[in-house]
Every structure is written in C-alpha cells, then in structure tokens.
C-alpha cells in the first residue's frame, strides 16, 4: 500500500490537521508520502519531512499553486496520485475543494470525511448531519478520501526524517485566478484544534454582548471561540467561527455552549466533544440532551460569575 497525503499549509507553516491525516494513513498502513503543493513552500516541506511516519515528501513549488486553486492543484494531485493506492486530504475547505476534483480526474468515487479506518478499503463516515454513521467500502483501484481531523489523534510533528523530493510537474489550467483574501486575525487558539471551545448563540443578543460576556471566559480558559449559525447570521461574529454541519467540526475536551438552543445542524459540529456544558435560560433547550452539565440561568449573570470563580 502506498498513501499520498496532501499537506494543508499556508506556504509557511504546515497546518496541524495534516498530522491527523498522517495518523489515519498509518491506520491504513503502508508507505506515506506527503505532497506539499505551494509557492515558496520549502519550509513547509522541511516541516513535513520531520513528521513521524512520513517516508517521503514531494514538493511542487510553483506560482500556480500559491493559493491552492482547485483547478491547478487537483490536476497535480491526479497526475501524481496515479501510482498510489490511497490519496488523503483533510476535511478542511481546501481539502473539500481540491480532492473531489482530483478524484473525478482519476475517474474514481471519493469518500468524504472519514472518522474511522476499518480496513484499507472500508471506512466509517457520518451522514445526515451526524445522525447516522455509515460504513462504506470502496471497490475503486484508488481510494480517495478526506479525513475528519478530530477523529484521529495527531502523529508527532517531530521525529521523522523523510527525504524531500522536488517535482517539476506544473499544472496551470489557466481558467481561474486568485483575486484577494480576507483572513480573520485572532490571537486565540485555532477553533478546530483547541482543547477548550467557548461558543455563543442567538441568546448572547448582540455582537457587542458576545465579546463582553464571552471574551473574558475564553481568555480565562485559553479557549477558542465559536458560534452557532444563528449568531453568525445575526452578524454577531464572522462566519469562520461557525460550528456545525455547514461550519467547522470540533471535538475539544471541553465545549461550553452559551445561549445556544442546540439545533441538529449545530450538534453535528460539536457532539463528539469530551465534555459539553450548556448555559441556557431555557430548561427545555435540545442542547441539554447532549450536555454533560447544564445550568439554567441568564448568561449575562452566570458567565461573569463563572469567570470570577474559575
């Protein structure tokens, strides 16, 4: 078995989610090659070479891959991927954008968002917003899949010593162009990787109140901040903070849901958290059904009290 893992990165740093994919690749078993497609991404390739369990790193360094445009990167992945039994990427927006395109170029079906490896050809994945878990078997020659990072413990970032090989393959479809990006700056830990997440919903009332009430709690716990779709749609916080079926999937040690009722779509994004705390004024809120501890009360008084007592 030979496995190609597509590295997630920003041309400077290897994204930690890649370590979770390598962990999934180890469960499949076989030689693991990491592909770094980027521009000026030598540092990323060097980091990937140190990852435990990686036997080879391929670096495709070209301006065509600078912004991970799917049209170019998928063509590269399909080209290089022909010789592998498995091609894996993370279930991030980049992985979701690129990998299905590469799979179709290879004329194979793809499995999205695997949460467990049963055998090299059989995997588990959630369907219906996580309300059912399907076991799927692939009869394709090449298994192409995205991996849910939170479902696999990351391998060590240090300890490996893979060789870095440069690939000259340049795929530039010339049909798409990067224009601009707006990346939300945050001093807090990254949402999908955080050990503790503090999330606010419609119940926090306003963007101002979200920060007044929840910032001190997140600061005190060193937590990442999340939100429900209602809070994002109401404009309280930007959409990259959304946790749920259509936002980010998190599974921290502690998830504190404040003013969140707990719609199916939100639960899909956080119900694998180890400990869930719900703070809500509604005793009947569906979130309580998945919470380990729930406290009924006004978040405007409960949360500051909690901050004071931590």
């Amino acid at each position, binding site marked *: 078995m030979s496995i190609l893992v597509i590295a997630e990165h920003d041309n400077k740093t290897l994204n930690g989610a890649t370590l979770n994919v390598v962990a999934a690749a180890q469960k499949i078993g076989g030689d693991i090659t990491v592909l770094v497609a980027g521009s000026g991404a030598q540092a990323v390739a060097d980091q990937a070479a140190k990852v435990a369990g990686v036997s080879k790193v391929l670096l495709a360094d070209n301006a065509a891959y600078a912004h991970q445009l799917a049209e170019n990167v*998928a063509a590269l992945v399909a080209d290089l991927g022909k010789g592998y039994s498995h091609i894996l990427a993370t279930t991030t927006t980049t992985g979701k954008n690129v990998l299905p395109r590469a799979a179709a170029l290879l004329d194979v079906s793809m499995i999205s968002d695997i949460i467990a490896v049963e055998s090299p050809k059989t995997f588990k994945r959630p369907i219906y917003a996580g309300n059912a878990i399907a076991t799927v078997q692939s009869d394709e020659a090449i298994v192409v899949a995205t991996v849910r990072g939170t479902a696999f413990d990351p391998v060590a970032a240090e300890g490996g010593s893979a060789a870095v090989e440069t690939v000259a393959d340049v795929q530039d479809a010339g049909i798409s162009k990067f224009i*601009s990006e707006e990346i939300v700056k945050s001093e807090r830990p990254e949402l999908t990787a955080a050990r503790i997440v503090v999330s606010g919903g419609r119940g926090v009332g306003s963007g101002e109140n979200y920060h007044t009430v929840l910032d001190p709690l997140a600061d005190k716990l060193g937590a990442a901040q999340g939100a429900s779709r209602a809070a994002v749609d109401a404009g309280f916080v930007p959409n990259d903070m959304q946790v749920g079926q259509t936002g980010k999937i998190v599974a921290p040690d502690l998830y504190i849901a404040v003013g969140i009722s707990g719609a199916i779509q939100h639960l899909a994004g956080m119900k694998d958290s180890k400990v869930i705390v719900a703070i809500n004024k509604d005793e009947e809120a569906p979130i309580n059904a998945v919470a*380990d501890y729930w406290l009924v009360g006004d978040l405007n008084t409960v949360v500051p009290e909690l901050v004071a007592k931590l």
Partner: protein
Amino acid sequence: MKALVAVKRVVDANVKVRVKPDNSGVDLTNVKMSINPFCEIAVEEAVRLKEKGTVSEIVVVSIGPKEAQEQIRSSMALGADRGILVETTDEIGALEVAKILKGIVEQEKPELILLGKQAIDDDSNQVGQMLGALLGAGQGTFASVVNVTGDKVQVTREVDGGLQTVELNLPAIITTDLRLNEPRYAALPNIMKARKKPLDVKSPADYGVSGTTKLKTVKVEPPAERKAGVQVKSVDELVEKLKNEAKVI
C-alpha cells in the same frame, strides 16, 4: 446567458432521522422530503441573476426518483423556466451524478452552473467539484458572493479563516454556501404557473451513464449515545464538577 441549476430531493432539514433496525440505512418512509437547502440557495441566486438581466433562462435539473418532480416544480415556482428530471432509483454516487450533469451541460450549454455545496443527506460535498473536473471548467465552491462581468465571474468563497475571492472564466461551476442569499417563498400564483412549465423526463442512459456507485454502504448505525448529563444548580456546582468530576479545567 443560460443558467443550469441542479437540485436534490432530500429529507427535510428539520427531521430527526432514525436508523433502520436492520442497519441497512435510515428510515425514509413517511418522512417529509424537501429541496436540499443549499440547492434552494442556488435556485434563488439564479433567479436573482435573471432579475438583474444577467441570466436569460434557468434550467433546473434533478436526478432521482419520480417524486423529485416536486422539487423541480418548487424550483419553477421560485422562477426557474423549465426542468429536466433524470429518473433513477439506482444507488448512484456523486461521480455518477457529475457524469449525468456533464451530459446535460453538453446539451444545454449553460454559462453558469449552480449547485449547492453539499446535500444534507449524504453530506458528501463533491458533485460540483467533480463536474468541474469532467468539464474542465473552473469552480467557485462555498460561494457567498457571485458577480458576473462579461465572460468572467468573481466568486467570494467561504474558506477556513475567512474569505477568498477568485475569478473564473465562463462557463463555470458555482456551489453555494448558506450566506449567499436568503431564498424567497413561492407565491401561490407562481406555484400554479409552475405546473404548466415544461419538464422533460430522461434516464441516466440518455447521457451514456450506466451502473451504480463503486462505494458500497456496508451498514448504517446510529451514532454512539452520550451518557445522560446532569443539571447543575449553581455556578459553584458547575466549577466543582468541571474540576473534580470531569477534570477538564
């Protein structure tokens, strides 16, 4: 220009599905079905582009059982001009759907192809990207803003960490994210008018697609149940439990 919109008939987003006792799938008998919410956003976007004069005709296509006609009619009630139902009850996957759509695109020659970013039943998030690959067309996935100018389209995409804007040559594929727009409701007169709009019924074989998916669903299980939680009466009790019982802080 012509726009093609793909819509899928799925379990209504508010239904809590149950896994069948024999683990063969989820129980869909007598469950409310609807148009996939992301597909509804795709229809709405096409209609808005038509209202702006960018799009002149909207063709809506659905692949699935005979009943998927309902979702095509709903799309027509929102403003689509005509429909194509590719009728099949076979278990087909994203790749087969993309191949059928490719056949339709080659016949209809739309400049804009709109799909939802994912269907809320299989949660795959693949068809738009696969169609892009098969057509050799650009893809603007997870779109929250779409601007057509001349023979190009600028798409602002929702990516992890923020937003990214790309420019694609037409024809291009766009898959919609939740924040692209707020779909309208169909008015009764429009529902009546939609009944008279043309709807062609085809089969996958008409587009040279045969066979089913090579992904076999071995079994479907309910997710692991969480241990029942407890209601705490005070902040003190909560802090105490988190420190000493759960040991997470």
